[in-house]
């Protein structure tokens, strides 16, 4: 076994490098890509971790478990969770309507769905804050109902939900488009109700895409800053998000604390990114009959 393995390997490598050489530019594009990624991404990131590692464990632990910082982890995680759950439902609805129905204004609806990706976060922030302020277009009616959004943690959820709307819509849409109609039509013609068919046949095929979109939306929400700070009120222990916490430490010129918290946030973000990639890889393999 082992000998045939090693005997085959050089031959495979040879053929791989042979196809490699058909197209020009391998060396150049590899060089430029590696240089760029190292300089722009890897160097600054390793800089942060080396800084944080240089602090000593006790100081590091003390800084990242400061009660105000811990409160900001909780606020951020809970708000991001609420926002991405909202987006799972809203995104599924939107994707469904955009794929399944024809109606006037559909193209406009589809186009405006990407607005949160294109609109600068600071602009989104002041706009949402103005809409939900006590005298704002939405705030005045909500105030009558006794609901406060601006300058409360609910405002954070609204801002996070706004900035991450497109994720679920855009991951579910293509899956819904490619869904084969046979099973669904068979079940319908056998007299099953809409809800049963959706639950038993459609949802099992859709949920991996919903989860992927939800996870992307969650990851984005964890780091959201511009849209959040204008509407959050930013009071310590109550409505401070983690990105703001890092900013506050920076303004106090407490670089070690800022780096330590940033290292925690960075680690969580990278793990989340990795998890989403692994999950997507598996799910795509299953979808395309691997």
């Amino acid at each position, binding site marked *: 076994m082992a000998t045939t393995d090693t005997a085959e390997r050089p031959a495979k490598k040879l053929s*791989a490098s042979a196809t*490699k050489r*058909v197209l*020009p*530019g*391998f060396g150049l*594009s*590899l060089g*430029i*890509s590696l240089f760029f*990624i190292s300089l722009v*991404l890897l160097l*600054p990131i390793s*800089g*942060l971790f080396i800084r944080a590692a240089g602090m000593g464990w006790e100081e590091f632990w003390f800084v990242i478990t400061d009660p105000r910082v811990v409160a900001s982890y909780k606020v951020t995680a809970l708000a991001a969770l609420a926002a991405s759950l909202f987006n799972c439902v809203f995104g599924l*609805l*939107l994707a*469904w309507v955009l794929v*399944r*129905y024809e*109606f006037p204004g559909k193209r406009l*609806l589809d*186009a*405006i769905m*990407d607005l*949160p990706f*294109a*609109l*600068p*976060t*600071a*602009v*989104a922030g*002041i*706009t949402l804050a*103005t809409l939900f302020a006590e005298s704002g*277009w939405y705030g005045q009616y909500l105030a009558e109902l006794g609901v406060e959004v601006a300058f409360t943690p609910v405002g954070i959820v609204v801002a996070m*939900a706004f900035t991450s709307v497109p994720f679920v819509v855009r991951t579910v849409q293509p899956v819904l488009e490619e869904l084969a109609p046979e099973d*669904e039509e068979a079940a*319908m*013609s056998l007299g099953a109700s*809409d809800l049963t068919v*959706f639950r038993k046949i*459609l949802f099992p095929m859709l949920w991996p895409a919903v989860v992927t979109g939800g996870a992307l939306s969650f990851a*984005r929400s964890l780091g*959201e*800053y*511009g849209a959040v700070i204008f509407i959050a009120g930013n009071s310590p222990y109550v409505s401070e998000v983690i*990105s703001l916490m*890092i*900013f506050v430490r*920076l303004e106090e010129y407490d*670089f070690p604390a*800022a780096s330590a918290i*940033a290292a925690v946030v*960075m680690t969580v*973000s*990278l793990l989340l*990114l*990795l998890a989403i990639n692994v999950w997507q890889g598996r799910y795509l393999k299953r979808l395309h009959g691997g």
Partner: protein
Amino acid sequence: MATRKHRRVGDTPLVRRTLIGLAVGMTVLLLFMPLVLIFVQAFADGWGGYISNILSEYTLHAIGLTLLVALLTVPLNLVFGVFLAWLVTRFTFPGRKLLATLIDIPFAVSPVVAGLLYLLLYGSNGWIGQWLGEHDIQLMFSWPGIVMVTVFVTCPFVARELIPLMQQHGREEEEAGVVLGASGWQLFRRVTLPNIRWALLYGVILTNARAVGEFGAVSVVSGNIRGETNTLPLQVELLYQDYNIVGAFAASSLLAGIALLTLVVKAIIEWRQSRN
């Protein structure tokens, strides 16, 4: 067989109307009204007020700086994105998947952390910053720092648009070009570019939209000096905090205009694709 005649989930008029109504209603509330509000507020003092707000000294300077940042960032990320997409989709080599994952990092990182990364390295007590300080070069709290973090934040967009498309097209056409004796540049211009030009255009426009709109990362490294290191989004924040709401929304309307332009270009490109 008339498969279209089969009933599918959600076909009954009541369900159909309810779902469309809900989707449209919520989109209007969540996405459309905010857009309307920006322009209503921007023009609250009429055209004259709008023009004078845009032409105010600091806003004008912020527009200039923002254009400079975009002008430097976009070409850099365009070149990088094209080379990376070429590398990842046209060759097989160990570590290919890792590279494709690495460039997603800026999507996952909080913009404030992104700014901090650069501040730690190039700031006055960073490793490189100290050396730069000895040579009287200041990158942080001035425009080069703003460009650097903007490059970080926007570097995935072009590659992300190109990679799926180039993967789908495969390498056969380019390989045929090589056999026919095309040089690398001819190959790219004559064979690859016609296939990817619309995705490339959208990638560039998206990079531009994000470059002019970046807030968190720029906020960390800018130092917010009025009329010096304030980009347009930072100027929006300053005006808003000064209770100059109309001024803040006037500046915002420019950024919202760029965002709308981005959406229009995307819609046109998708319309062209669906027609083919």
